[in-house]
């Protein structure tokens, strides 16, 4: 199922590693960059390029928070739900986001625009509450400021 381009990029990575296995996270990210998520069918093919079984690849793929094993929308919102953000209004932010988007955590809007996920501390506790949209940091959030942030993403 992998495209020629995905294969080329993954094969190209191997030159940077003495052991091809060490490239597995990077290879999964290549797949994710090309199709937003990592489908099951990609695992044996990534494994074949790295000399690993599909199971070995899956053991890594399922371990990480930011390797998506289900389809996600065009933009991924990661809302910090750890303690410093929780103390400064995480719950209001989460409620406002869910209402604004009409979805819950782990879901994608019907127009495929946003996927909403919780994430642990973003190292931005000085700007709590905080979230990432496509890895862009938004801090000192209030429910009122959410619209401006969401408006940047079509």
């Amino acid at each position, binding site marked *: 199922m992998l495209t020629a381009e995905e294969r080329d990029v993954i094969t190209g990575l191997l030159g*940077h590693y*003495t*052991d091809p*296995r*060490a*490239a*597995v*996270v*990077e290879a*999964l*990210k290549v797949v994710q960059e090309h199709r937003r998520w990592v489908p099951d069918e990609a695992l044996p093919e990534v494994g074949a390029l*790295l000399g*690993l079984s599909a199971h070995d690849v899956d*053991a*890594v793929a399922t*371990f*990480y*928070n*930011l*390797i998506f094993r289900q389809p996600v929308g065009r933009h991924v919102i*990661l809302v910090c*739900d*750890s*303690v*410093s953000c*929780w*103390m*400064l209004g995480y719950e209001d932010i989460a409620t406002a986001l869910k209402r604004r988007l009409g979805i819950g955590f782990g879901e994608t809007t019907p127009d495929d625009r946003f996927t909403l996920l919780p*994430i*642990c*501390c*973003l*190292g*931005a*506790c*000085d700007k*709590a509450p905080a979230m*990432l949209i496509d*890895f862009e940091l938004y801090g000192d959030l209030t429910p009122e400021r959410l619209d401006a942030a969401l408006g940047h993403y079509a």
Partner: protein
Amino acid sequence: MRDEDRPLTRNIRPGEPPLDRAGYEEAGGYRALKAVIGRRDPGELLDIVKDSGLRGRGGAGFPTGMKWGFIPMGPDAPKQKYLIVNADEMEPGTFKDRFLLEGDPHQMVEAAIVAAWIIQASDVYIFVRDAYRRATDLLRAALAEAREAGYLGRNILGSGYELEVHLHTSAGRYICGEETALINALEGKRAVPRQKPPFPQSSGLWGRPSVVNNVETLYNIPHIVLRGAEWYRGLGKGADGGTKLFGASGRVKRKGPWELPMGTPLRELLEAHAGGMHDGHGFRGLLPGGASTGFLVDEHLDLPMDFDPIQNAGSRLGTGALIVLDDRTSLMGMLRNLEHFFARESCGWCTPCRDGLPWVERILAAFAAGRGTAEELDILEMHTRFCGMGKTFCAHAPGAIMPLETALKYFRDDFERGLTRAA
């Protein structure tokens, strides 16, 4: 504080882009690298690091010089040896390594190269969490500039020393910050912790001698080798030498981070630097070093922020990131949030952690809703023992249980109030 008293952050101007190589060198950067690579004996430099009293800033406070001293040296030592930089920073409440990496990436590069020389490493791996995209981009640019200048790669500055620096971006998981899990992650394996011993210094990445150090720990190194152990020790106010990045979160007026002497009293951090509590909020307690440290309360505020005094008070200095609980935030809600984090981030390898933490979280939810039972209170106590130091494979569970254990000690009334009221 004067610039020379804050070696870690003196180049950092928040809100402005960090110094490029030219700017960094103008500010005195890469002087340590030029002074030591190929010129100073690694053993002699190691002694300076040992004498400085530097202790690891990743949370455990292990003496850095002693850690490096376990790396095999000399002609019979393995050719492949690794220095691994731990930039996985995911301890809730902590934002110091991000501040350093985004604020002065060249200092990371210089620190890594100088540290690598001292242990005669063949490669450096910088392990950065995926969410730190800006830090990653800045590091990549700094590494390219350093390579161009001949500070890394083959034959550094004509010394014959060869060093490669690799940047590894992770994909998000707190446990990757545990040093042996991190090594598994770098090898492309599922990032569960490894049994110790063997310690990484004898058998680490691909079975080779390896040292894992925190970002902030390493930022100290160029200054220590240039200015000496005595100067460094003199920066601290108490037993521990040097400065440290401290920060605060919760309902305090200012968050930091601030670079301050080790041994700065907790009260000074809270009142002078954080500016005290928001108006209308009172102080109840704080976790002094991130989510995995125990509560300290009023009676502890005059303690110096050094490793031993905080440990002796039943907590840990951890990352020096204060998480402050005010009198209007629910303690039970906070504990539940903390244990939710630890339960979710457990790697699942051992039972007290994998099964115990979700259980604890459920009980805390009941207490938060005023539906706890006396029996559940006993069960919480039981888990504090099951997850204690030495009962689990790694330090995740002992850290996870520390806030609960200390809350049971200092805030007993909250638990009593969380019990179901008999009609």
